[in-house]
């Protein structure tokens, strides 16, 4: 088992001082190598959940166990390093660093892991996402599809056990959508990486055998928030 959430709760404090409960999850589990898609209404807490899993956000209570270790209890510095090594993240908006070339973006992911930077591996990853000829291009000179492929390569740079993807195809056209989707799924399968992907697209969700609805395991009533969100 590579991911286990137990009794996880999270609420935000709004500017007015009101407390906004977002998540209350008794148990959520993914086994090593599993691929799941997470769907749910906007504002339901999907991004919040991914942030808690990656250790970017801490839950108010509960355990987040990745690869056998509860990251909630780790000191922050250790958790950051753990994230660098065990977790790959692909964002909706790619989030490449504009000052760095495609290759450097991938190397950058490696350099925070505290391990030796493996340049041939980074080049190999970019080659596998079909960008062998664009290693030294700046992200700003690439198409959105290419940018997202760089982001996928970067997420895999440290050979993570868990890949989190937050609507990775929301900003690309339909050709690129299936390309990137397949890329993510194939590389995860090849490397036995657990995949959790958030999507709003029924088409994307339909391709997965495991589809998790947030409201099915989140005890916070999402509807309460509906009028405030977009």
């Amino acid at each position, binding site marked *: 088992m590579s991911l286990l959430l137990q009794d996880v709760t999270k609420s935000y404090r709004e500017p007015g001082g009101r407390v906004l409960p977002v998540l209350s999850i008794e148990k959520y589990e993914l086994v090593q190598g599993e691929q799941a898609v997470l769907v749910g209404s906007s504002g339901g807490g999907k*991004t*919040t959940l991914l*942030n808690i899993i*990656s250790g*970017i*956000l801490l839950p108010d209570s509960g355990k987040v166990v990745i690869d056998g270790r509860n990251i909630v209890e780790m000191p*922050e*510095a250790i958790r*950051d*390093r*753990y*994230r*660098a*090594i065990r977790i790959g*993240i692909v*964002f909706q908006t790619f*989030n490449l*660093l*504009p*000052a*760095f070339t495609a290759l*450097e973006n991938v*190397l*950058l*992911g*490696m*350099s*925070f*892991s505290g391990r030796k*930077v493996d340049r041939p591996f980074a080049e190999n990853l970019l080659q596998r996402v079909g960008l062998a000829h664009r290693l030294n291009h700046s992200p700003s000179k690439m198409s959105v599809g290419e940018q997202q492929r760089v982001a996928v390569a*970067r997420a895999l740079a*440290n050979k993570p056990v868990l890949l989190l993807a937050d609507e990775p195809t929301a900003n690309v056209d339909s050709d690129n959508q299936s390309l990137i989707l397949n890329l993510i799924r194939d590389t995860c399968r090849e490397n036995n990486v657990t995949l959790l992907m958030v999507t709003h697209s029924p088409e994307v969700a339909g391709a997965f055998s495991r589809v998790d609805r947030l409201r099915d395991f989140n005890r916070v009533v999402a509807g309460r928030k509906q009028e405030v969100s977009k």
Partner: protein
Amino acid sequence: MNLFTIAWKSVRQRRLASGLTALSIALGVMLMVLVLVISGAVEQAFGQRSIGYQLLVGPKGSDLQLVLSAVYRIQPPIENLPYMYYEQLKKDRRVQVAVPLAFGDVTEVGGFPIVGTTAEYFEHPYAPERKFRMRGKQIVQLFDAIVGAEVARFNNWDVGSQFSIKHGGADSEDVHDEKFTVVAVLEATGTANDRTVFLNLEGFYAIEGHEKPIDEAEKRLRDFYASEPDVLDNAIAQLEEYRRHQAESASAPEDHAHEHEKTPVAMKEVTAILVRTRSDFDAINLQSDLKKGFQAMAVNPIAPINRLMTNVLGNVQKALVVLTGMIILVSGISIFVSIYNSMSDRKKEIGIMRALGAQRTSVFAIVLAESAVLCFGGGVIGWLLGHGIAVVASPTVSMKTGLLLNPWAVNPWEFVLFPVMLILAVLVGFLPGMTAYKTNVADALQS
């Protein structure tokens, strides 16, 4: 990829802003270096605080100007004394030694000041208990010259070298025909003598154009000796004789040198006279006598300089250092503003790095490294610029002012500059670094 490479990339990403802020630091440091180079030169020029004579006698006027030209060889003299006055002074019973000095030109190469004097100058101590030491022999021939250690080093001259001189200072392109020969090189003294070329006083007069136009000379003599009719009569007689001679030679041209030899004493001038009196009392006595008259003045050679240094130059120097320090500080603030402003744009970048697993301390260090790159890079560029400008400007500066810049001499304060730049970098980078440190990753990613 280490933190410095990452910092460097993001500096490059904002080339223009980074370039401008680094430039402002560079200019500040450049000014600081120039101030230090110049004040080093000033300090060296005025390093001599005592001379081997009690009095310096020159025409009435500014005592400071007299000392600047006669001792420090920095300013050209305004007015001269008649050579006849030097002869009179020498006969004064209070005077033990009187050495004439005549200034005018500079060397063609290096722009070193030229001083006409007599062998006596080298026989007496230039400072209390310090005698000249030289390699070579005394000035005897008309075109013999003795050069200071710095002159010899700079021009690569040695005993036997020949040179010509330029007329009337730096602006002039007018090179005299006469060739002088170095007969001796002085050992370094740490005084203005090191950068002076000494000529035989007679040789100095022999240079074309070093005698006053005859009418001007007459006017000056009439003023100077208004109360000494017999001296005046003698002088005027000489001038008349000379006028007659010139008229003759105009009809029957003779050769140059011959003409020179006939220059009458009345037409010769000296710029200053170094005087050693028989006693300190005589010095005071002579000084106050001259004060009563209208012909000349005697000054204690060093007092005006000490006054200038302590009252003016020292403070100006301090003020300049403080001012350039403030310029650097202001540049530091501009770097701070630039980095701090960029932080809001970079909130997302920092969020991404943190999401990729970067530690809080790492993003803090990256911002600090950026500030260090800008401060240090700017500092090094400014340091090179400062010394570079000193190299380029030093010939002009020494010709115009007589100050010898040593462009690559590193002032001890410059060693302080770099730790200071480091502290500045830390100060400048600290707050933006803390902003990076405290970045809320989840928020930053959403922005």
